[in-house]
Each structure stands twice: as structure tokens, then as C-alpha cells.
């Protein structure tokens, strides 16, 4: 599948953003999680068979502009920034799909500007909090615990692929830096834990919403699927077998199928 790479300068010239555009069909805005866009490409390719997918990189994670991570101060600014990005891409009211941190951003956009989101898909989003089920902070997790928290099968192909880095030195350094900086750039909005007030705004979401959750998510427990769905008028939640926090990587075909079924082709 051909990927067109757009590069836009936004936010008074302070943020350069790369957007990977692929596929044909109704527009779909894809917001990646804390580890950058790279791990999600295979899943995006599945969606691109049916939709025109716009996959921007979060501020700070585009090539050549790490300082953009400092250019947007607050979650509020980030939501307004995404409004500007949608304007520039001529996306009037696309379907939006977001994973983890990207799910929270998608939900905030849908709560702030309900008329700009046609349909919403949230895959293991963060953003709500229960004291009895604290969301784990993946940025301070021991390496040994990380694979188990993210994947139902920590030794499976998806996990192996996710944690692999190229062998060649420069590429390896670039790959590690990119994944660390992506966590820094996204983590700043949800540090030290991701309850930043969505609970006060989530009722504003008007778009029909599908909440998908890996049954073995070790970051945010599957009980959060209902916490999200119950707060939105038109939402339903589906749990995914054999998946942790990254069901779109571990059960890509099934998740893509559910998304297509929900969005319509």
C-alpha cells in the first residue's frame, strides 16, 4: 500500500508534523499511542484497504522536530492543535480511532468538538481512573514487567516485533531514541497518571463509539472498557481475547474487522 507522507507546519510555526496518508475511502483519522507511529503501521495498512487513513505523528515525534514536544503546554492546547491539524487536512468530521494515549486524545477531541467526529473508536484508551484499579505508568515499569503488561503473549510474534531494534548501530540508536522520545512527548500530558479531567467532559461525546479492550491489558484493566462505555450515550464495549494493551498489534485482523464492521465500509 502506497503511503503519502505530508509534512505540515502548524501552531504558529512551532510544530512540524508528519502525516502518513494511505488508502482510499471515507476519511479516518488515526491517533497513535505512546510508542510512536512506527509500531502501528501494519495495523494502519489493514484499515487503508477500506478507508483513506490520515495518521499524524504526535507533536515532538516527527523527524527533525523533537523540540515540538515543548511547544504545546497543556492538554487543552493539544486538543486545539488537533483542531488546527484537522482544518489543514480538510477533515470536516472524520471517523477517529485512537489507541492508548491516542485514544484519550481522540476522546478529548470528541468531547470538545462533538460535531467534528463522525464515529469514534477507542482501543485500550487511558484517561479514567479507579483507585482499586490504578493504571500502570509504563514509563517507569521494570523491563521484565513491560512485555507482560503490554501483551497477552509476551513471547509471541507481536511482542518480539514490538521490542526489536535494528542490528546496525545508527539505525538501532535512532530506533531506541525514537521510542523513548515518543513516550516523553506523549507522557508529558498524562504524567504522573492519566486522569486529567476527561471524566468531567466525556458526557459531551456525541459520536457513536466503539470501545475495544484487550482482555489481558496489564496497563489499564479491562474493567475500564465499561467505565468508558457507560459514560457515553452511544457507546458499546467489546473485549478482545488473546490481547493485552496493544490488541491492534496482537490481534490485528480481528480488531481491524471489528473496526470496519462498526464504521461501515
Amino acid at each position, binding site marked *: 500500500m502506497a503511503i503519502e507522507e505530508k509534512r505540515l507546519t502548524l501552531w504558529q510555526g512551532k510544530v512540524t508534523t508528519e502525516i502518513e496518508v494511505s488508502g482510499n475511502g471515507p476519511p479516518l483519522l488515526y491517533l497513535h499511542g505512546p510508542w510512536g507511529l512506527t509500531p502501528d503501521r501494519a495495523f494502519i495498512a489493514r484499515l487503508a484497504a477500506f478507508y483513506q487513513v490520515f495518521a499524524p505523528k504526535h507533536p515532538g515525534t516527527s523527524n527533525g522536530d*523533537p*523540540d515540538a*514536544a*515543548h511547544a504545546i*503546554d497543556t492538554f487543552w492546547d493539544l486538543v486545539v492543535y488537533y483542531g488546527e491539524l484537522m482544518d489543514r487536512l480538510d477533515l470536516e468530521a472524520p471517523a477517529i480511532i485512537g489507541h492508548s494515549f491516542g485514544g484519550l486524545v481522540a476522546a478529548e477531541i470528541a468531547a470538545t468538538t462533538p460535531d467534528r467526529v463522525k464515529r469514534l473508536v477507542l482501543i485500550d484508551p487511558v484517561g479514567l481512573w479507579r483507585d482499586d484499579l490504578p493504571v500502570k505508568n509504563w*514509563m*517507569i*515499569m*521494570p*523491563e521484565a514487567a513491560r512485555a507482560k503488561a503490554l501483551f497477552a503473549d509476551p513471547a509471541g510474534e507481536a511482542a518480539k516485533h514490538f521490542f526489536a531494534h535494528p542490528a546496525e*548501530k545508527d539505525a538501532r*540508536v535512532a530506533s*531506541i*531514541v525514537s521510542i*523513548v*522520545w515518543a*513516550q*516523553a*512527548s506523549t*507522557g*508529558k500530558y498524562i*504524567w*504522573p497518571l492519566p486522569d486529567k479531567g476527561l471524566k468531567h467532559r466525556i458526557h459531551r461525546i456525541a459520536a457513536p463509539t466503539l470501545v475495544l479492550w484487550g482482555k489481558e491489558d496489564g496497563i489499564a484493566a479491562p474493567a475500564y472498557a465499561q467505565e468508558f462505555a457507560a459514560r457515553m450515550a452511544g457507546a458499546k464495549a467489546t473485549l478482545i481475547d488473546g490481547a493485552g494493551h496493544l490488541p491492534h498489534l496482537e490481534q490485528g485482523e480481528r480488531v481491524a474487522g471489528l473496526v470496519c464492521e462498526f464504521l461501515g465500509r
Partner: protein
Amino acid sequence: MKVCMFHLMPYRDLPANFAQRYNSAYIDPVWFEVADADRVGAYYNWTLDELVYAANAGMHGVCTNQHHQNVYGFMSNPSLMGSVLAKLTNGSNTAIIQIGSTLPSTSPPTRIAEEYAILDCISGGRLVAGFPTGLPADATISNGVVPLDQRERFREALDLVMKAWSAKEVFAWNGKHYQLPAVNLWPRPIQQPHPPIWIPGSGISSTAEYVVEHDHCFCHLSYQGAKNAENVADRYWELAAKKGRDANPHRFGFLQLIGISETDAEAEEYARHAEYFYHNLLHTPPHYQAIPGCLEYNALKQAIANPTRNFNLREMSFKDLVERGFVIVGNPKSVRDQLLQAVKRLRIGHLMTLLHFGSMPSELCRKNIDLFCREVLPHLAPLWDDEWEDRWWPARLRETRRAPAMAGAAS
């Protein structure tokens, strides 16, 4: 040169199986599983006693520091300790070196400007104002600072503190991280426009560059000893030269673990305390150190491309620690020779001595202080003085020359 006594205020009686039970000195050990508040009360008092003892024995300064939620050192607010030290050393020439309160963790940072000004007033102008950025775990986990904001907050906070200390008018502060409608600090430090500024770091990164650019004193607080610091020192002096600064050794501080006994053989008495320090107290796993965002982008690239040598501290015996130069121990002459060599090689103008480490009891710490101040300090003190002025030392203490120390006097 100036030589100071540094103290971490560690937990001194950890259970023997601590290293097996906990994979981290930070965050994980639950207080009630490990610690006892009465014991800790004694530690705080011993720590203050040991620092005052060192001051009375002739040390030029006493150093406190800030850490949180760990067994390795928990002066959570070093100003509390500093104020006791300032009071108890009044009438002496001892510098009160706060190195110090961590600006990014304290909001608003004018609180630290006030505390430091109080210390300068109580001590009669003997304060050295140290400003660490704070360890990643301290700032971001214990105090909830956004990792990506830590260094930005540090720089903005220090600008605010400096202005708050010396501004002749009431001012408003409209920063990115701090906003205050009317700043008019009470009190202001005796030392104007500001006390000497020391900024610690553990290598040459954006912090060292900032320090050189602002003409402060950079303190390399390493636990790997002078022998392993040559590269850092060389890079620091290159950086200073590149930025047009002179080679005044007093713009560089260094910390060293030291244990002195009457003979080399007797210096074995430090073995278990050094091992306790490196095996238990210093063990912090990478996920509490390499927190995404704590290193700025270029520093992160550097760190990934050129990883620093990773010693497995828990596998190092006392013999290893001595042989590799992490700790300098031995008879007075041997320690003196090693330190003289290190000070000259690295161009250290401010030596911070860690004469208490790990589980060391107070008696041994006092003996260490006695021997150091009697047998070593008089040989170090005259270094550099003929050639370089210490511009990073409280002005009122610069001209005072003290008589050779009387070990253990007036404790």
C-alpha cells in the same frame, strides 16, 4: 582550595537480606517493612553531630542534599538540616553548603529562595546556594514533575530565584511554569546579588553547559571516584575553555568517598560499610533512572549512542571498589597522596568528602574526620590559592585564614 564534609543521611541498619528483598533503593522499599522512626530520629541527630564535628575539626564547609522515598539518603528538605547547622556553627568560618534543594520539585520555587535567604541571614553570610536539578526518580516520581519539564522548570526557577533575591522593586513573574503577581522576598540574602551558586551533575550534559554559560560552579557528584572521573573532568575543562571561561579550579567540585585508618591493614574496617553503600544504598534500577523525558533530546541521543560503562555494583567487593578507585582508603599518607594527585589531575577546587557512608557508625565516622582533618586537610588546603581566587565561596569567608585544625576540638 576548599574541602567540605558531605553527608547523605542514609538508613544505617538495613536488614541483612535487603539486597535480595528489594531490587531498588528507591521507591519500592516500604517504610514499615524496613525502617524504624526512632532509629531514624537517631540518624538525623548523628548526621547533624557528625557534620558539626567536621566543622569543628576544621572542614571548610558542610554539605546537605535532598532526596526522597529511598534508603540511600533522605534529607527530604535540606534547609531543615542546614538551619540547624547554620545555628550550631555560628561564630566559625564554616560554609553552609546546601547542595541542595531541588528547584523543579518545589512550587513556587520562591519558597527555596526564602529558605536560602533565611539560612544566609542566620549564618551571617556563610551560605553556598546549591541547585541540583534532582534525580529523575526524586523529581518525577516522588514529586510528580513532568519528566520533559524538569530541566525547563529548573532553568526558569533559577532565573526567578536570582531575580527574587536581588530585585530592588516588586515584580510580577509571568513564566511558562510559574506565575506570581508580586514578588518581594522577605528576607533577602546577606550576600548580594546572590550567594555563590554550585550546581551538581553526574556527567557532562546540558546542565554542565548551562553552568559554564552562567559562570557558576559545577560539581561532579560521582560515586565512582576520581580515578574514573578523568574523562568527565577533561570534557568539563574543554567545555569551559570553549565557552571562554578561565581554568580556575574553583569552578569545579568533586565528591569522593574516603576512609582513613592508622594503617592500610586497619582500613579494612571500612569494608562492610562501603559494600553496604554500593550494594544496598546505591542500587537503583534503570527504570527509575532512565525515565523518558528526563534527558533532553540531544543528551538522550548521546546517552544511547555512547552508553556509560555500567558497573554491576552488587558484584563488586570492597577490594574491587578500592582497586577501581571508587573509594579511597588507607593510611593517612596513602590517602593524602592519592587525593593530592586526584585534585591536581582533575583540577578540583572544591572537594566534597564523603567521610560517612553506608552503615558506618558515628565513632568510626569521627575517627575518619579526625584523621582527615589532621593528616590530609592541611596538605590540600593551600592548593591553588596562590594563583586563583575562589569566586564561588562566601565573600566574608574568603579572606579568613584559620589555624591548623585541632582534631576533635569543641565537639
